[in-house]
């Protein structure tokens, strides 16, 4: 802008001298004005994190051409990743307990909506935008076989809206805003799931819609009750006022509503029924995206409400949340893993395995000590990487074999060695073999269990990992030791294979270099256990 003003003043100076001083004065004025108006975009990164994908979604609809829409979505997704990485770097540079606050519309919190970024949600933002970018790279090739090309632009619009919603839930510091973004992400997720190849996709999207709406309603009820007790919706303000109110019945009901509502979105064990169908029948890339982000963000919401809003003393010492969550987590770890062993479809097996892995994360939350919570949060990151990678591998199989059923995978280890190699790597990480990311998170969970003095819990974590060995081994056995079907198979397309390998090599990398994941997660855990954010 100031360049413009200088140019203007140059042209004016070059002009005739009659109004010389007058014109010069005007130009100087313009330059001053421009300098005043020079926008410092980096201040507005929190708003742009949400606004860019939100505005790119309608642009995708306007562009209409599948290629163009994909290009825009890819660009915006990568931009969002860059923004979230910048924000994470900035938050970590602020040191322990530091937070970035952005006031939407210039209204001061607690009255206005505040975006508040601390170590915890900066970390989750990186996961959401990162997975979104990698999956987006694999999308066009995989989607071609599942959705007519002329409807792709709607897919990209829904995808960007879903990402907007998930990032919005994560970034906002306002409880009601969480609900609004939850609805944005959920509605677009239903649309994405219903785009699957078979009719079953529509019914499973509908099932998810019914469950998700009930979950959203409970969450809203809980937030409403909290508002009734405290008169505020800002999370930081809520936690201060709630500590003064203490544990009365309204607060108890609010906690119950919020935990029940979020648990549905999280697919915590008895409330998980929507998940296997939704993940199985959704388009392959949608599953890869949602499995790594939607339930993770729900976990974040649970963590945020339990630790930041209610606080450890209220939630655990007075209202005994751990007495509810610990058994459910253990049931999820064992029950869902057992069901996974008996699945005939590998995609469905991975979906059940997701339910089990959510159990591990909730276990970390319920332990409510630093190691446990660190384990839960690290597992959030690691599991996002491995599940997203594994579902991309499923996308390769679906594309080349036309199916992900176990019997169709016979001998696929020889026919598609690179693709299946990626599956084995992800499987090892899912089991928690040392040197993979899965090991790191389980290590912290076991440490948390031991620190809490609950050694049977540590044993349970190890035993349930054996169940993961069982269901991964079934696939490995069929794919490597069964006679392959005849006929040549082409290698999976690189545009899906490379993203899958990036994610799964990521699990290997973060299994060896834990400073980023564990460092950020433990900073977040200390922040959460230290009281108010």
């Amino acid at each position: 802008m100031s360049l413009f003003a200088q140019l203007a003043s140059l042209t004016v100076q070059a002009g005739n001298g009659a109004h010389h001083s007058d014109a010069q004065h005007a130009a100087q004025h313009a330059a001053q004005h421009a300098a005043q108006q020079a926008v410092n975009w980096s201040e507005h990164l929190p708003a742009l994190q949400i606004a860019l994908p939100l505005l790119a979604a309608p642009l995708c609809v306007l562009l209409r051409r599948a290629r163009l829409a994909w290009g825009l979505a890819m660009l915006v997704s990568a931009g969002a990743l860059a923004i979230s990485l910048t924000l994470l770097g900035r938050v970590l540079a602020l040191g322990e307990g530091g937070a970035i606050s952005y006031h939407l519309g210039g209204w001061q919190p607690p009255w206005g909506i505040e975006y508040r970024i601390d170590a915890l949600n900066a970390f989750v933002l990186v996961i959401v935008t990162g997975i979104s970018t990698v999956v987006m790279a694999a999308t066009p090739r995989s989607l071609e076989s599942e959705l007519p090309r002329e409807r792709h632009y709607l897919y990209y619009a829904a995808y960007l809206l879903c990402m907007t919603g998930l990032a919005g839930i994560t970034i906002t510091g306002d409880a009601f805003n969480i609900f609004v973004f939850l609805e944005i992400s959920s509605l677009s997720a239903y649309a994405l799931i219903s785009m699957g190849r078979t009719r079953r996709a529509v019914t499973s999207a509908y099932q998810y819609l019914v469950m998700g709406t009930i979950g959203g309603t409970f969450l809203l009820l809980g937030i409403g009750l909290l508002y009734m007790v405290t008169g505020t919706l800002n999370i930081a303000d809520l936690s201060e006022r709630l500590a003064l109110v203490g544990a009365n019945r309204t607060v108890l009901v609010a906690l119950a509503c919020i935990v029940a509502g979020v648990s549905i979105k999280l697919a915590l064990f008895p409330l998980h029924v929507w998940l296997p169908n939704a993940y199985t029948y959704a388009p392959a890339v949608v599953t890869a995206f949602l499995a790594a982000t939607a339930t993770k963000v729900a976990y974040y919401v649970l963590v945020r409400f339990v630790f930041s809003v209610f606080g450890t003393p209220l939630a655990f010492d007075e209202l005994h949340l751990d007495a509810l969550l610990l058994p459910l987590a253990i049931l999820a770890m064992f029950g869902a893993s057992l069901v996974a062993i008996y699945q005939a479809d590998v995609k469905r097996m991975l979906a059940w395995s997701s339910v089990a892995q959510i159990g591990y994360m909730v276990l970390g939350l319920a332990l409510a000590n630093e190691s446990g919570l660190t384990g839960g949060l690290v597992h959030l990151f690691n599991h996002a990487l491995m599940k997203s990678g594994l579902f991309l591998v499923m996308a390769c199989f679906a594309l080349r074999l036309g199916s992900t059923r176990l019997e169709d995978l016979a001998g696929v280890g020889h026919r598609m060695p690179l693709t299946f190699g990626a599956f084995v790597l992800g499987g090892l990480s899912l089991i928690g073999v040392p040197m993979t990311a899965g090991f790191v998170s389980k290590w912290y969970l076991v440490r948390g269990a031991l620190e809490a003095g609950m050694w049977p819990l540590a044993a349970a974590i190890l035993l349930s990992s054996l169940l993961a060995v069982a269901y991964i081994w079934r696939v490995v056995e069929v794919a490597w030791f069964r006679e392959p079907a005849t006929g040549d198979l082409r290698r999976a397309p690189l545009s899906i294979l490379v993203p899958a390998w990036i994610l799964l090599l990521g699990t290997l990398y973060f299994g060896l270099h834990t400073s980023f994941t564990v460092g950020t997660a433990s900073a977040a855990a200390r922040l959460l256990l230290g009281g108010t954010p």
Partner: protein
Amino acid sequence: MIRHVILRIVAKTLIPCILLFAFYVQFHGDFGPGGGFQAGVIFAAGIILFALMFGLPAARRVCSPRALEILISLGVLLYGGVGLASIFKGGNFLDYSVLAHDAVHGQHIGIFLVELGVGLTVTAVMIKLFFLFAGRKHIL
């Protein structure tokens, strides 16, 4: 229903009034009860009444599916665009005060534009939903 004279005449008289009332609710939203959402629903109700009277094909000629899609997108873009414009003007996202030289004017313009965006999107979404359900040949 085009052959029912009374229905047709009543509808023909009502539809312009409904559309006009929608505009009133839209532009009166800054001063009193009303706003983009309500106005959008009322406007869409006018079009839906038209579709009920004169059939879906006639209504589709008035608002083609592609035009609806564009309107839906434009509404969101207008809303978000106001947000970006307030950043350009040196304020925070959606800070209307900076949109004009004084804050009151700015708030006025900001709310007006944002509500217009809401109105556009809601109108188009409502009509689109009606078309989708009305145009469906088979039940799942």
